[in-house]
Each structure stands twice: as C-alpha cells, then as structure tokens.
C-alpha cells in the first residue's frame, strides 16, 4: 500500500504525462476531449485522496523523498491537514475547469497553445502544496508561474495580451525573489532547507518580521495584495476563461497556502505587530479591490478585481488569527483561521463559477465588455440563473456560502475586545467596518455586473442573437452553483472538516458543529451568536410559498404586457439604458473623487452646433501612476546609462572584473 503523499504524486505524474501527451496529440481532433477528460479524472482522484485525509483523520504522515533537486537534500514531499485542504481546493477547481474545458475548449482557436500547459499548470499547483523543503517549493512555484504565464500568452496576438504576459512575468520574478530571500532568512546560516528543520529552528523577532514582510511581498504579489495587484487584472482576463477561473479561483489560493505555511507553520509563535501589518494591508486591499471592480466595465477584469477584494478579506481574517495567536488566545485564533479557510473554499467556488459564466458569454457573444451586452436572461436562461447564484454568493448574502464565511469573520472581529494591545483594540473595529463596506460594495458591484449584462435590453446585435452554451459548460457551472448553496445551508460539516487544519496551525479547536442543534453553526457559544443557514433558507422558502399561495388564491390573476413606461420619451434606444459606468456613477462620485481622481467632464457643443453633447469620465489608477510608472521610468533610465557598459574594450572589462573581485574580498575581510 502506497502512502497518501505517494498516491498524490502519482496523480501529479499523470498530469505531467498528459502535458507531454498533449504536445503529441495537439493536432488531433480528439486532443481536447482526451486531455480535459483525463485531467478531470486525475483531479477527481486527487480530490478523493485529499478529502479522505481531511475527513477521515491523518492516514499516514510519512513524507516522500525523491532523488532530484539539491544533491544533499533531495526533493521532500509531505501531506498534512493544511496541504490536504489546499489540495481539495486545487483539485476541485481543476476538475470543474476540466469539465468546463470539455465544452469551452472546442471553441479554442489554438488548442496546441493551451492543452499542454493546462495539466502542467495543475500539476505545478499540486506540487507547490505538497512540497516539504524550500528548494522544491521554489522550483514548483516557478513551474506553476511559468505554466500559467504560457497560458496567459496563449492568445499572444490579441491586443494587450503580450503586455499582460510581460507584466505578469516581471511581477512573478519579483515575487519569487522575495520568497527566495524569505526562505534564505528562514534557513539561516546553517542552510538546512527542509521544512522540518526550519520549523525546529527558533527565529529572532527581527527575522520573523522580515520574513513576514518578504512573504507579504512574495505570496502577496501572486495573490494580488495591494499594491502588488497590478498584473492580476491584466493577466487573468488574457487567459482562456477556464484558465482565468483557475488562476483567480485557485492559484491565488496556492499563494495564500504559501503565506500560511510560512507564517503560521514555519515561523512559530507570531508577534502582534505582524498582525497589524496583515490587517491593514488586507482591509485596504479588500476595499480598493472592489472599488476598482466597481469602476470596470470589462467582465473578466471586473472579476479579477473582485478576486483582489476577496484576497483582502482572507488576509484580514488571517491577520485576526495572527493577532489572537500572538496573545495566546487559541479559540478565537482558530475561529478566525477557520473563517479564512472557509472563505478560501467559498471564493474558489463562486469565482470559478463567475469566470465560467464570463467565458460562456464570450462564447455566446464574443464580447467581454458589459456595455455591449444586456438582456441575456432571455437568450441564456440557464447560464443567467447559475451566474445569478454566483453573484448572490459572492455578495455575501444569505443563505449562500459567501455570507457564512463573512459572518464567521465578523464573529472573530467581535472577539477582539479580549486583545490586550490598544493598537489592535482600536484597529479591529475599524477593519470590521472596512469589511462591511467591502461587502456592501461587492453587492453593488455584482448588481451592476448582473444587471447590465443579463437584464435590460440587448445593446449589440451579438447580444441579441446569443444562444445558450453547451452542456459541459452548464454542468460545470451548475455543480459549482450547487456547492455554493450547499456550503451556505450546511456550513457545520464544512467547519468540522476544516477543524483539523485549524488545530494543526493554531492549536485551538472550535466546538464540533455536528453537535449543535438543528445543524446550526455555533463558533464560540450559543449565547454569543449562532447562525443556521438551513433554517433561514427553509423560512424564506416557506414564507415565499405562503405569499405566492395567498396571492394566487385571492388576488387578481390578470396580467397584461405593455411597453415600459418611458416618462414621455417612448421608444428609447437600448443605448440609452443605464450602462456600467452610469450605474457606478454615485459610488464613483462618493469614493472615486479622492481615490481615483475621478472627474466627469461634460462637453457641450455651442448653441447652433449639431454635434452631440458628450460625457467623458476621467479615472486615474493612482497606484499605477505614482508607484509603477516612476519605478519603470527609473529602471529604464538606469538601463540606458548602463547600456554604455556593452561597448567597452577588453582591458576595461578585465579591470572591472578585477575591481569587483577586490571589493568583494575587502568586504569579506572587514565583515569577518
């Protein structure tokens, strides 16, 4: 009998084999069906293995050492509860994306650019989660980044995609550099890169805080923390939609896994200033992410920005867990940590679902700009229904899953008066208010997304003639929608399944939710707060049915169709409807004036001039303009200066080499 980790590695090997097979098969017409079908089967098997570990208790904790990598180290792989949970997220997302790909992939113009990298990307993500030493971790991390970069560049001739790929590559290299330094600091001068050795070494507070900052840079740049998020809204939309779903719904979670692994597991006991940094960054990311999304009218970019928001929420929750952990409050720490993991799971469900929905719209209409869509609820009833579920879930509204994790985070926020530090006492309520703001803005944003895209009247011929998408895509979306509802009405079992992870990382154990009456969730004690998604759902269903029954029993049944009331302006054109930009106007005016330097310019033609009046919206991405553009300018300037070094004589090169050598030796001599 093979160990659990060995079985998972067999799956990874299978995925890598599929990548090779895809290169061979890529010109065949069966390639799409074979590759996606086989990827789905392997992902489901890996999912089953991870679930068995998570639900059935540790099967065996033995690691696996492969004779590759550094000669004195080898490549270590190991599975624990944390890894098992993230394997569930990765492989569930992978299976759903493969099922979706079975239908969506048939419309792919260049399958040979997608098929080999898709299983390789999934293999990379699985490997990152399984890696048990710093060297293989970084190697797998780079493999994952490169595979996803290749997928971003799949349609490299489309406008903007090459730039997206370039920026992604720069940010990914930067992130890996930060991770490299972090692991270097962790391993210390002894240089043992195994996670087990790092875990057993004590770290000084200065090293710990430095590692935390490097992890925020490294994992944060992959996850999309502000201000390192810039590549995300460019690269995620550039990839084919099922890959966008994987990148947004799953790869950002792998980055969060890296953060948790290092900060909660390897670093040991945290200190409270660490939590202040994480809480601050997380809450700013959450609010800014959703405000960016609110200003966006490109569907996939909107979804990518909303991913940034959700990453912020997860980091806030992790920051809370750190704060409680630093003060030895194990139970609230476990609550905040469970909330973070629950949100990781939820976000992977509804973000994948929404990206699939965006892909379905792309297949049906060829449009990503919501201001050219509209009225699709009539043309694509099934897609619109499942996307509506995704929108309600991501807006954190009961009885769906997004609300449960937000509710748990708020419960953790309410535990903060027990914290002894004043900075945290004052900060946490403010962070809670920011979270509430982000949740309300998310609801606004998804009203806009669904309302402009699916409701109203079609704004273009493509939207007018759209047809429903294929069965595979619908199946993938329906499964995810069902999971959103299930996790929302039965949160207790999910929390119980997350319990071993929380115990492993925080040492606190929440009450077993299966023992709570009526399947409610009671995170701390019943008098503090409880929530029952199932009963809320049943109550809503009963009261809605009662209302429908009485109305249909006693009220008039008459119904007449007529033209919409035009307020004296009949037959307005569809272009006169509220668009994405006009829907965002109140929020743009309230928040954007300061945060985006937003201005509305009305250009009125002179009297007698027959040109139409125009409204121009001016928006600035201040992070891009104030941080990245000066940085890029400085790099370009330095490169221009250093360019002179290319044209030196051999004597000068030799003297440069000599000078470097002398300087280094001098440094070494003074240092020691």
């Amino acid at each position, binding site marked *: 009998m093979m160990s659990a980790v060995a079985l998972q590695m067999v799956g990874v090997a299978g995925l890598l084999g599929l990548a090779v097979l895809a290169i061979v098969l890529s010109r065949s017409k069966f390639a799409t069906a074979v590759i996606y079908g086989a990827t789905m089967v392997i992902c489901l098997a890996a999912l089953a293995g991870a679930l068995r570990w998570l639900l059935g208790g540790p099967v065996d904790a033995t690691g696996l050492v492969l004779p590759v990598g550094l000669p004195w180290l080898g490549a270590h792989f190991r599975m624990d509860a944390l890894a098992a949970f993230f394997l569930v997220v990765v492989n569930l997302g992978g299976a759903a994306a493969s099922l979706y790909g079975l239908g969506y992939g048939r419309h792919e113009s260049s399958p040979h650019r997608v098929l080999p990298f898709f299983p390789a990307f999934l293999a990379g993500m699985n490997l990152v989660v399984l890696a048990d030493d710093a060297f293989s971790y970084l190697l797998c991390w780079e493999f994952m980044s490169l595979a996803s970069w290749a997928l971003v560049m799949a349609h490299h001739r489309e406008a903007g995609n090459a730039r997206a790929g370039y920026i992604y590559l720069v940010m990914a290299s930067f992130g890996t550099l930060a991770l490299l330094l972090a692991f270097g600091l962790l391993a210390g001068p002894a240089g043992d890169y195994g996670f087990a050795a790092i875990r057993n070494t004590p770290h000084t507070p200065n090293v710990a805080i430095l590692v935390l900052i490097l992890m925020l840079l490294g994992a944060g740049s992959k996850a999309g923390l502000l201000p390192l998020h810039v590549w995300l809204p460019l690269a995620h939309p550039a990839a084919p939609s099922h890959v966008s779903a994987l990148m947004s719904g799953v790869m950002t979670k792998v980055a969060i896994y890296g953060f948790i692994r290092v900060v909660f597991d390897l670093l040991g006991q945290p200190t409270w200033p660490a939590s202040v940094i994480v809480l601050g960054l997380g809450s700013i990311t959450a609010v800014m992410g959703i405000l960016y999304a609110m200003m966006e009218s490109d569907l996939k970019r909107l979804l990518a920005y909303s991913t940034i928001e959700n990453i912020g929420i997860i980091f806030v929750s992790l920051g809370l867990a750190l704060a409680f952990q630093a003060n030895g409050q194990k139970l609230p720490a476990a609550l905040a940590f469970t909330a973070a993991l629950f949100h990781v799971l939820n976000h992977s469900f509804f973000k994948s679902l929404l990206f699939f929905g965006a892909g379905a719209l792309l297949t049906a209409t060829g449009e990503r700009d919501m201001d050219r869509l509209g009225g699709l609820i009539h043309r694509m009833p099934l897609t619109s229904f499942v996307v509506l579920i995704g929108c309600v879930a991501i807006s954190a509204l009961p009885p769906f899953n997004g609300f449960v994790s937000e*509710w748990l985070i708020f419960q953790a926020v309410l535990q903060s008066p027990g914290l002894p530090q004043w900075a945290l006492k004052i900060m946490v309520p403010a962070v809670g208010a920011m979270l509430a703001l982000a949740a309300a803005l998310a609801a606004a944003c998804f009203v806009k997304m669904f309302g*402009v895209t699916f409701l*109203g009247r079609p704004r273009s011929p493509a939207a007018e003639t759209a047809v429903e998408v294929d069965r595979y895509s619908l199946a993938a979306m329906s499964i995810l929608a069902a999971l959103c509802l299930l996790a929302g009405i039965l949160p207790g079992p999910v929390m119980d399944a997350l319990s071993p992870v929380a115990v492993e990382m925080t040492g606190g154990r929440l009450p077993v939710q299966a023992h709570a009456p009526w399947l409610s969730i009671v995170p701390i004690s019943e008098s503090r707060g409880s929530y029952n998604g199932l009963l*809320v759902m049943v109550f809503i269903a009963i009261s809605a049915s009662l209302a429908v029954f009485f109305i249909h029993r006693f009220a008039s049944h008459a*119904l007449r169709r*007529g033209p919409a009331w035009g307020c004296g302006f009949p037959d307005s054109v569809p272009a006169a409807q509220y668009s994405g930009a006009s829907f965002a106007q109140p929020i743009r005016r309230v928040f954007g004036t300061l945060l985006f330097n937003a201005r509305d310019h009305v250009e009125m033609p002179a009297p007698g001039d027959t040109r139409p009046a125009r409204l121009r919206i001016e928006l600035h991405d201040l992070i891009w303009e104030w941080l990245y553009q000066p940085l890029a300018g400085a790099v370009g300037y330095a490169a221009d200066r250093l360019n002179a070094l290319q044209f030196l004589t051999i004597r000068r090169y030799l003297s440069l080499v000599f000078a470097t050598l002398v300087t280094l030796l001098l440094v070494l001599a003074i240092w020691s």
Partner: protein
Amino acid sequence: MVVIPDIIVQGLQMLLVLLLAPLLTGFVRKIKARLLRRQGASMFQPYRDLLRLLRKEVVLADNASWLFRVTPYVTFAAIWVAAALVPTFASGLLFNWTADLIAIVALLGSARFFLALAGMDVGTSFGGIGSSREVMIAALAEPAMLLIVFCMALVAGSTQLSTVANFMASSDVGLRVSLGMAVIALIMVALAENARIPVDNPATHLELTMVHEAMVLEYSGRHLAMIEFGAFLKLLLYVSLIACVFLPWNIALFGTGPLAYAVGAAAYVVKLAVAGFLLALFETATAKMRVFRVPQFLGAALMLGLLGTLLLFVSRSF
C-alpha cells in the same frame, strides 16, 4: 410535544408583524398629515391600498424577465423572515437563534439586492438611477450598521438579539454615552434604509431626487402590493429593533406564559406608537437632503458608531 406552544408563539409573532406593519405606516402618515394641519387619510388606508393593488391587474413591461416577477415574493419573504426574527413582544422565541443581528441585516441586504436587480430589468433609466443610488446608500449604511452591532455586542456580549434584549432589560445597564451614540447612529441608518426623509422621500413618485420609489417604478398590481408590504415590514422591523435593544421594558421573557405575553404585546404597541409619532415629527420638521449629502449623513452615523465603540474600550461603564 413541548415545542408546539413555542411554534404557536413564533407563528403569532410572524402574524403580528404582518398585521401591524401597514398600521404603523398608516399611523405615521396620519400623524404627518395632522402635523401639517391636513385631515389625512385613515390610519387603515394602507390595508385598503394593499387590497386595491391585489385586485388590480399587473401591467408588465414587454421585456420583463422571470426575475422581475419573482423578485416581489423573494424580497417580501426575506424581509418577513428578518422581521420575524427580531424580538417584538417576547424575547427568546423558538427560532430567534437562527440568525443574529448580522444575519438579519444581511437578509435585508438580500432583499435589496433583488430589488436593485429588478430595477435594472426593464432597461429604463428610472430603474437604473434608483438602483444605483440605492446600492450607494446601502454601501454607506452597512459599515455604520456593523459598528452599531459591534457597540451593542461589546455591552451585551452577544450579537444574538434575544440575548441582547434580555441583557438590556434585566441587568442595570443604566444610561450610557456609548449606547446613546449607538441609538442615534442606528436611527440615522434606519432612516436611510427605510428611504425616509431626509435621505429619500417615501411620498413622491416622480422626482429625480428619489431613490427607492424610482427603483420600483415599473411594478404594478399584486407585485407592487408585495413590494409595498415589504417596505411596511421593513419600517416595523427597524422600529422593533430599536425598541428591543434600547427600550426593552416589559418585553416578555421566554416561557413566562400568556399573561406576560399580553403585557409585552401591549407595551410593544405603545412603543410602536411612540416611535411612529417621533418619526412623523422628525420628518415634518426636516427637509430632504441632496443625494450627495447622504454620504456626510451616513458618515456621521459611522463616526458615532466608532466613537461609541472606542468609548467602551476606554471604560466599560461609558
């Protein structure tokens, strides 16, 4: 079965909010009219309005989708469930623990989400303007609401409304600065959430300043009846919420028998009347503000909530 009386009491509560909600709105309208030295319609006019709407046919826009027809029932159900979970005459009812205050606020959020979508469904500018402003006001009101919840939970140690009400009613809470701030903030949020003056005007239908009424402009007949009923219920919900947290006197404790329930119910009706009178007085005395003044108004509520919370950190006795 021991739960049967509990279920009956819970059912009574659901029925009570349903029956009283239109009366509260009618009462407020009547008082407003009297304050303006008008005769005003009868207090029972909202019931007649509802019945009239139910008898009328529905005129549906040509391109209205199924979502437009489902929304009235969904919003009504969500608000009704939320209203039934707020303790009115008795605390600790059977299903009160199903959802705490955060969940109740989120249920109202669900109702608003669907209503805002319905406003976008027909594709006229009126619906769009109403929806976009409604979600803006919600985005500003929700952080303030959370801080109020936070403030309350700090005092009472729970977000569970029954527990909060029992705590406020039983122990000697006394007058506190922080709770005073919280109640003012909660009233401001309630005014915004219920589309009352000075944030919105519930009496107008055709003015560009309107928010809520523009969003539901396309509705007619039984659908409009459901939406109006939902709005009545929401007003009642917020009044009950303020009453049960900040004025919990004579609220019947769980299982104290029919007599206590009757006393609780009588006290509840009195509280509603007082609240309705104060609301009418306030609405008559102020003017509606510009839409883009609302951020300042709700920002003040947010700051009051934050200040109340911080005062509680300084000392639990504030």
